[in-house]
């Protein structure tokens, strides 16, 4: 009997340990603050990310997305707070933490006078990678740069430059990837490719990316942190944010206005162009109910549609 219990205990312990190693926190930020002069760029933010997670930083310009990322990479020194990357204090044991991070800065700075291969070998050598040639060839294949590999970086189109930027961030196989606006200025095809690449990478690595495009977050991220004026205003799973939306229906009635409509638990308001917005917090099948109501009353419906209350609206509300 006792033996059995003991075995169970051991087993649970083993499971726990496996769990811990799988879901180890790879980036932990505590009470991080940064001031530029009197302006608070980042104001006392804390969050944690586990490996295999794609986190999106969302926020208007100047919300502190880039500054936070720069502090995690160790480029900008924090005024207060702590950053741990894979358990290593990135502010103190600088070099060790830097080896764990792959970084694509905003605007993707590159040495335009270098060749693609030359640049990637240069970066690989900085990380003291063995077999530089093999690794560079691998990265070129992974980021789809085969046709451009013998060109100078300045000759590449923006999308390919972005790939070089991602390749240099990945070359030392880092555990944490920090991508500052990885998809800005790409055409729709390139956008799709880069998104697919990032999603693929997110399966085994921790990815933090910043963007001000909402669809981007919906398409790529597991979790989103919305920043505004240096503070975290939302930290949710992307799926949760979408479920939380309240239902909104847009309709148009011939010769009627919002005040002519009366329904329980539904708010009506006039919009431009004769449209009426109906919103309700707890109405299932709102569209059907409104339709039935209009038929009963003998109103003539000209337009009826369910509005998707998207991340975009959440974002607008939170950052107003």
């Amino acid at each position, binding site marked *: 009997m006792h033996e059995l219990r003991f075995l169970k205990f051991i087993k649970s312990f083993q499971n726990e340990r496996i769990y811990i190693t799988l879901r180890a926190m790879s980036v932990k930020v505590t009470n991080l603050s940064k001031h530029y002069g009197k302006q608070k760029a980042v104001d006392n933010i804390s969050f944690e990310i586990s490996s295999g997670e794609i986190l999106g930083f969302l926020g208007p310009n100047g919300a502190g997305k880039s500054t936070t990322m720069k502090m995690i990479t*160790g480029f900008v020194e924090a005024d207060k707070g702590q950053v741990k990357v894979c358990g290593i204090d990135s502010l103190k044991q600088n*070099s060790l933490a830097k080896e764990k991070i792959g970084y694509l800065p905003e605007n993707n700075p590159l*040495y335009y006078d270098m060749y693609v291969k030359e640049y990637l070998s240069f970066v690989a050598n900085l990380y003291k990678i063995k077999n530089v040639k093999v690794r560079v060839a691998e990265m070129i294949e992974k980021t789809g740069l085969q046709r451009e590999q013998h060109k100078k970086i300045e000759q590449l189109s923006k999308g390919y430059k972005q790939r070089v930027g991602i390749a*240099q961030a990945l070359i030392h196989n880092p555990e944490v990837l920090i991508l500052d606006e990885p998809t800005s200025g790409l055409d729709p095809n390139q956008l799709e490719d880069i998104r697919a690449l990032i999603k693929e990478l997110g399966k085994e690595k921790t990815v933090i990316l910043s963007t001000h495009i909402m669809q981007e977050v919906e398409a790529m991220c597991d979790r989103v942190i919305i920043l505004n004026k240096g503070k975290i205003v939302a930290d949710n799973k992307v799926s949760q944010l979408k479920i939380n939306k309240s239902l909104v229906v847009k309709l148009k009635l011939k010769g009627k206005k919002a005040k002519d409509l009366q329904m329980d638990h539904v708010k009506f308001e006039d919009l431009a162009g004769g449209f009426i917005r109906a919103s309700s917090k707890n109405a299932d099948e709102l569209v059907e109910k409104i339709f039935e109501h209009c038929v009963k009353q003998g109103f003539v419906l000209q337009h009826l549609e369910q509005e998707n209350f998207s991340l975009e609206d959440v974002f607008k509300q939170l950052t107003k």
Partner: protein
Amino acid sequence: MFTIFKKEINQFFSSLVGYIAIGIFLMLSALFTFVFPTTSILDSGFASLDTFFSNAPLFFLFLIPAITMRMFAEEFNTGTIELLVTRPLGMNQIIGGKYFAALALVVFSVVPTFIYYFTLSSIAAPAGNVDTGGIIGSYFGLILLGASFVALGAFSSAITNNQIIAFLVGVLFCFLFYMGFDFIAKLPIFVGKTDYFVEHIGINSHYLSMSRGVIDTRDLLYFLSLIVLFLMFTKTALERRK
């Protein structure tokens, strides 16, 4: 550090900066040493390279800030400094790699002028009757002067994003340290009192003392401390700006 060094050297020669700087230096020094009558050693009647060694620092005064102006200013301007600093490298390695690459370029431009020594020694009467010791000392002095100019240029490149400002400030610093302190020492407030010390803050007095063929540890110490001091300033400037 060697990776940075290699990258810098490659960039010097792929952007033609390296070839042009070395080419201009060799062309000017050859013209002034052998062609233009006022400074040509062929007309001077003495078997000495003094005119070369007094002109070369003036060429360096413009050429070295031109080599060093993009060292950090460009990295800040394009944002690549962010990538460099976030690699597992210390600031010392970044500065060291870049410093030694620019210094190597200066050495590359000086090495071909060794041929002047052999030319001189073969046209001297009797052949070989030249002050070899003085010339070796002068070369040491010239390399150390170049090394100091590179450190001054590195610092001026670290304080701005603008390469032209980096160049102009670099020329100003090099001028100040090469000749400026000699002029300042002649101001009435220093003459007869501290003019000797003021003059010794400048490079010229140490450079001249080395060209006599005596390598004095005081001069050596002066050059090394000037270089280290300005590289430390460079480091402080970079750390404050990032």
